[in-house]
């Protein structure tokens, strides 16, 4: 009971700022658009300037309001960033209120307090790209520091600034209802420090974008650039504005340079807003797709379609669904291929789907687009059958893959062993026999010189035996493994095969190129066994053809007889190939990538 209460208390905790700020932002925007007069404020606001300036002014402010509302809709749990966007909108419109001659003094004073917030808010939004979270410690520190500094500056200035005494005042030289005591020198010093801070923050923001983009994965970059690039432009414009202000005070919205810089800032904000909006719209689409998919997948879909459906629905083309094997020791995709989960690219998240405390699948998706929490809760429950189907199939396929690899390894190990045997025969037994044969010759010569006729005859016979043993051993070694295959390739080995065959072998074609050793050995074994079978079956000749066709090597042996060639089928299968046998042709197709 207790726990339920606590949860509920947290869930319905007064989310005052989260509700209030966006609502106030909407009100401020509406008031600005409908209450503030369109003319007469040319010297004190940018918003009353040319059509272009008015356009960008409105677009940036309304865009920020829109982002705040969109965040509320798509990412309700990200309260901070929603508040920041709302504050940014209020601060953006505040500059118009400050310069609104004839407005209530309170409104102008509040505007003066809010106005500097724009910088901190935009920096916060850009640094929190793409999903509204400040991921690294440095960015968190920068943002917190910036907010604190902004607070100190704007509140401090409100307390000590007397607009009448401000040498550089331009937009509001009359009202400050918050002033406690007029300290023009302190107010000016605050302004100067703020100006320097603006220049530095602008530079830092301009530099942040290329660094962050450069260190991001391609996938993350796809989303990030739309926010970071306009963010960098905003930073650069901010720095330029600060620098110009140092040289030419007071500020003048009718001055071409100030006006241009204001427009650049405005368009940069519009850019950031569009980037955020685009990301949010994609995320919302993904959200709807996941929810809908959860419904659709109630029936059992074809295996392998889950990842495709999710990728299509969410608009994340690289989305992958993988399944744990051996209790999470390794992961495989729907086709059973092993996937390395420990290295998920930057900007991607691996979200486990858990059922009854057991991890049944992991969805690897773009962090900014697909909501991990939603995936966890909705997919797990509704798409259970689909996931279960795919998981079982993936397991079987993975086992099949393991088996295939093991088969290939067995064959390869057998070949290596044969090759070692062949070498050992040459280096060991054959050398000994050669030495023996040499000693026999010497003994033979000695016996003949000594005139021992019986011994001479006997040694002659022994010598012949030794010579035959050497020849037999040579044939045996060649039968165990043809060394020429490794050293000179298929062509030479097949020619030798034809030279020693019991029946004529016609060559149609043998490519000169070298193939991977397992492929060459398999081709040789197929040819040798087929020729042997043909000779045994009493065939009068065979026709042999080896050809490469793209990613495949094909061996045709015409006249090999009907088989069966089970051992050859095994051997060919071990390297992932297939053997076809009919009454005329034995054909082996081997992959050779």
């Amino acid at each position, binding site marked *: 009971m207790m726990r339920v209460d606590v949860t509920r208390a947290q869930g319905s905790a007064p989310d005052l700022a989260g509700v209030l700020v966006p609502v106030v932002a909407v009100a401020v925007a509406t008031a600005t658009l409908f209450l503030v007069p369109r003319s007469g404020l040319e010297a004190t606001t940018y918003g009353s300037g040319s059509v272009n300036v008015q356009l960008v002014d409105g677009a940036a402010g309304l865009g920020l309001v829109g982002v705040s509302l969109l965040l509320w809709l798509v990412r309700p749990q990200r309260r901070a960033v929603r508040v920041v966007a709302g504050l940014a909108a209020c601060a953006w419109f505040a500059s118009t209120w400050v310069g609104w001659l004839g407005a209530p003094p309170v409104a102008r004073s509040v505007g003066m307090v809010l106005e500097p917030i724009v910088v901190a808010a935009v920096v916060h939004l850009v640094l929190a790209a793409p999903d509204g979270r400040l991921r690294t410690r440095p960015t968190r520190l920068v943002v917190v520091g910036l907010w604190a500094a902004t607070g100190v500056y704007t509140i401090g200035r409100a307390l000590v600034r007397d607009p009448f005494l401000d040498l550089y005042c331009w937009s509001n030289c009359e009202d400050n209802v918050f002033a406690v005591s007029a300290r023009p020198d302190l107010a000016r010093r605050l302004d100067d420090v703020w100006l320097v801070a603006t220049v530095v923050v602008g530079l830092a923001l301009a530099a942040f974008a290329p660094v962050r983009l450069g260190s991001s994965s391609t996938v993350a970059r796809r989303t990030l650039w739309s926010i970071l690039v306009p963010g960098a432009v905003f930073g650069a414009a901010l720095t330029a504005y600060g620098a110009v202000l140092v040289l030419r005070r007071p500020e003048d919205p009718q001055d071409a340079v100030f006006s241009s810089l204001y427009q650049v800032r405005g368009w940069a904000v519009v850019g950031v807003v569009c980037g955020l909006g685009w990301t949010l719209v994609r995320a919302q689409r993904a959200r709807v797709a996941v929810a809908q998919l959860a419904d659709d997948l109630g029936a059992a879909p074809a295996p392998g379609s889950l990842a495709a459906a999710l990728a299509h629905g969410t608009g994340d083309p690289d989305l992958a669904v993988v399944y744990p094997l051996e209790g999470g020791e390794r992961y495989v995709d729907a086709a059973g291929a092993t996937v390395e989960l420990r290295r998920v690219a930057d900007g991607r998240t691996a979200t486990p789907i858990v059922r009854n405390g057991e991890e049944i699948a992991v969805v690897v998706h773009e962090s900014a687009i697909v909501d991990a929490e939603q995936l966890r809760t909705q997919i797990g429950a509704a798409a259970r059958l689909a996931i279960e189907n795919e998981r079982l199939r993936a397991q079987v396929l993975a086992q099949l893959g393991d088996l295939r690899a093991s088969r290939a390894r067995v064959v390869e190990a057998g070949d290596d062993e044969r090759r070692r045997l062949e*070498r050992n025969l*040459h*280096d060991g037994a*054959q*050398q*000994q026999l*050669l*030495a023996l*044969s*040499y000693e026999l*010759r010497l003994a033979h010569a000695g016996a003949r010189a000594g005139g021992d006729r019986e011994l001479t005859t006997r040694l002659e016979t022994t010598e012949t035996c030794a*010579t035959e043993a*050497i*020849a037999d051993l*040579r044939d045996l*070694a*060649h039968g165990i493994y043809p*060394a*020429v295959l*490794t*050293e*000179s390739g298929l*062509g*030479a080995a097949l*020619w*030798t095969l*034809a*030279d*020693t*065959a*019991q*029946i*004529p*072998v*016609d*060559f149609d074609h043998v490519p000169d190129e070298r193939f991977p050793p397992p492929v060459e050995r398999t081709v040789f074994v197929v040819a040798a066994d087929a020729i042997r079978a043909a000779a045994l079956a009493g065939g*009068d*000749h065979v026709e042999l053809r080896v050809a490469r066709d793209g990613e495949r090597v094909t061996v045709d042996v015409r006249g090999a007889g009907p088989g069966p060639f089970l051992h050859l089928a095994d051997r060919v299968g071990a390297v992932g190939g297939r053997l076809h046998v009919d009454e005329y042709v034995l054909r082996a197709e081997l992959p050779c990538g």
Partner: protein
Amino acid sequence: MRVVVAEDVMLTRVGIVRLLTEAGYDVVGEAEDLAGLMRCVMSTRPDVVVVDIRMPPSHTDEGIVAAQRVRAEHDDIGVLVLSQYVEPAYAMRVIEDHPERVGYLLKDRVFDVAILVDALRRIADGECVIDPMIVARLVGRRRRTDPLAVLTGREREVLGLLAEGLSNVAIASRLFVTERTVEAHSKQIFQKLGILGDPASNRRVLAVLAYLRSSTA
């Protein structure tokens, strides 16, 4: 005659050296691998090198590589490759680039002093030496129709000796005919079989081997 022996199996190397010494050759150097052989050849400048086809490090075709390198770098030094493989492909590689003063002999023949002495003498004379067993295997291959059927018995004999690398003079003395007769025979053989190339050049051995190897049917 000054000889260098390269063979990594000690037993066989000692045997060959003993055999050569007893036959009156001057063994001026011994080597166990390709690099050692090349150094030895440079320092001793022998007349002939006797080299095993398989040597360290890879124990595959170092002997063939050695033969090609010695022949390419030293025109006056002959090479005899000893092999345990009846592989025409290897023999052809040995004589491919420099078809004179080289030979490919099966190891088990070497201990017949007469054959070894004969081979070394022929190599020193500028001929090439192909083991008769290689030639026999090529000629003896089973074919549906024998392309050599167009040859007379004597021509087949000449063809075989020619393929073994014998010179016209050597063939003539082997068959008890004149050199002119052998020349006529070889010209006739090349014409009948359609072998491209000059029957009098030193590349004729390769041409004949290639013909015997490639002719199908």
